[in-house]
């Protein structure tokens, strides 16, 4: 990738700090003996959810391609990385936990990256919803193929019981997971910072203009898909270390959508947002599962759905805009720090304000949506603003 200009922006520092603080809290709890294994597992889940959300955000928020198949990459990583970890563990012995995890993560990540390359290819030709459905299809295809492989356990799933990393006395997998999160943040944030990142956001904002400027669109699109798939694959390997069996049912499009929900809730193109919403959703799921046992369990879907709808409407409805600006977290911080609240015109370069989403996701302007009549292209305003009903 050439030389990457390493400078830490304050915003990026915030992201590192959040992760480090969580890591420290976990470790302190571990040492003082307050870390229950279920909480350690929650930490691990938060960790790999962050990896998934941020890597998907790299595709959706920065490159501007809607992907509904992220769980498919995770599936590849979990199955291939999981199987190689099981075999490695047999070869190296049970004590080699960490080396096995790291090697498996590389194998799982790389094989997912190969699939990232494959799914990146159609993205060169397809746009918007069409690409979205292709990625969704890809996720289902991957699942279906793994389900039918005897070597991966077929319908019974891949038994990864021997990989169990956490023990009741030393649940330490979350530490490795958070280090993976940190490494991912360093890589992705620095790509985003660099000229490559600008090229990627340029493709998002206007592909044709980007091409005209001499940006190698093919290369960058594939590159983003490969990087995102690699990290999703790593998350899959971590998942394989927490759960046995690795079963294809987990990686359905519902899970891809859950990752997408994390990205959308956090704000497209906002890495901090993805981190927080990944935490939020994982914790909500955990709380709902632990609180609603027995007969109350059937309420879970309802509560989750209502939370989802209310949060999305609250944070997106045009009618609530002024209310939001008044009471948003950013405004709160601004008053606390006695600063002027962020002016939308002074928006930072990589901060795609997601109520005016990139061209590609603004499906209406680009797609054939007419019913039997000739299509007239949208007006320039539509292409730029993304607002409807002017």
């Amino acid at each position, binding site marked *: 990738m050439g030389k990457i200009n390493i400078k830490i922006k304050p915003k990026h520092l915030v992201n590192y700090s959040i992760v480090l603080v969580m890591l420290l809290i976990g470790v302190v709890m571990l040492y003082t003996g307050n870390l229950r294994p279920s909480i350690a597992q929650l930490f691990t889940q938060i960790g790999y959810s962050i990896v998934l959300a941020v890597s998907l955000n790299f595709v959706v928020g920065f490159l501007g391609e809607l992907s509904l198949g992220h769980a498919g990459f995770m599936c590849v990583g979990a199955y291939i990385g999981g199987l190689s970890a099981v075999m490695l563990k047999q070869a190296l012995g049970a004590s080699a936990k960490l080396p096995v995890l790291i090697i498996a993560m590389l194998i799982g990540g790389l094989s997912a990256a190969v699939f990232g390359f494959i799914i990146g290819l159609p993205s060169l030709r397809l746009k918007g*919803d069409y690409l979205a*459905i*292709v990625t969704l299809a890809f996720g289902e*295809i991957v699942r279906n193929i793994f389900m039918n492989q005897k070597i991966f356990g077929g319908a019974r799933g891949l038994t990864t019981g021997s990989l169990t990393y956490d023990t009741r006395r030393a649940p330490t997998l979350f530490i490795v997971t958070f280090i993976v999160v940190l490494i991912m943040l360093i890589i992705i944030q620095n790509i985003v910072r660099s000229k490559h990142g600008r090229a990627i956001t340029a493709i998002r904002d206007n592909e044709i203009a980007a091409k005209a400027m001499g940006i190698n669109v093919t290369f960058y699109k594939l590159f983003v898909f490969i990087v995102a798939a690699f990290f999703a694959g790593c998350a899959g390997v971590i998942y394989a270390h927490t759960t046995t069996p690795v079963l294809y049912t987990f990686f359905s499009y519902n899970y891809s959508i859950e990752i997408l929900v994390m990205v959308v809730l956090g704000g497209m193109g906002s890495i901090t947002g993805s981190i927080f919403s990944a935490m939020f959703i994982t914790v909500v799921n955990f709380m709902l599962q632990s609180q609603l046992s027995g007969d109350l369990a059937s309420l879970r879907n309802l509560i989750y759905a209502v939370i989802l709808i209310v949060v999305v409407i609250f944070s997106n409805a045009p009618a609530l805009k002024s209310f939001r600006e008044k009471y948003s977290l950013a405004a709160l911080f601004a008053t606390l720090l006695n600063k002027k609240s962020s002016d939308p015109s002074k928006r930072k370069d990589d901060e795609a304000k997601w*109520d005016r*989403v990139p061209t590609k996701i603004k*499906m209406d302007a680009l797609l054939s949506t007419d019913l039997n009549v000739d299509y007239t292209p949208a007006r320039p305003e539509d292409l730029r603003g993304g607002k409807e009903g002017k």
Partner: protein
Amino acid sequence: MITLIDGLSLGSIYALIALGYTMVYGIAKMLNFAHGDIIMVGAYAIMVTLAATVSPIAAIIAAIVICTILGILVEKLAYKPLRGASPLAVLITAIGVSYFLQGLAQLVFGSQPKPVGSAWKLPAIKAINDIGITTSAAVTLICGIIIMVALTLFIKYTKTGSAMLAVSEDRGAAILMGVNVNKIISITFAIGSALAAFAGMFYLFQIPNTEPTLGAMPGITAFTAAVIGGIGSIPGAMVGGVLLGVIEKFCLASPLAPYTVAIKFSLLIVILLVKPTGLLGKVVREKV
């Protein structure tokens, strides 16, 4: 031959669902992920009314009324506040609605699949049955085509239909021309949901069990069908649905049966790579 007929009848169910997807997408510009779950509600409505009245006609009417009202309600509560916001936000609320309906159905009816009842049966038509075609297959196929034609005529020749076209084409201009966009979108949802009720009805003829997740996989398959046909295109939805149904059945009959899902979705990818806007979708030139 029999496989082909089975495929056609499964395909026409997909096609009916895909019609709903395509309608809503073409006009409201949103992927209504909850469409499959409206089918599920329709199926439950049929089951409950049938148990209460033993009249299939009443059951069909109840399903259509309930689905239509539900469609309008969902649109008003969950989608309308987001008009003008990012399409992705709407996509997420649609998913939320889908979870909600599934959760509600489970709460009310339990998650156990329930047989719809023996009153829900088409009378045997001996002439077709003798050549190995089930009545439900024949009826589904014919009704699918009728509904498609009716829909096309409705859009072409009624005032509401033209207004829908106008909204689909250029919402801003439609408003300027005095079209009540909110009303048109509500009507679209109403029609889409009524179609879902029909789909639920035919689904139950073929697969006479109701369950809370009944709509999920047919919904996704139908969405795939709509995209294969060119999303937004009504004949496209029909073609895509039937094509998928037939291919699925031929896969199941062949030794490749375990890979049916993979083949079905690979077909989608291949078709889109060859024709990026689907079989009957219009090619749009991108302008700067």
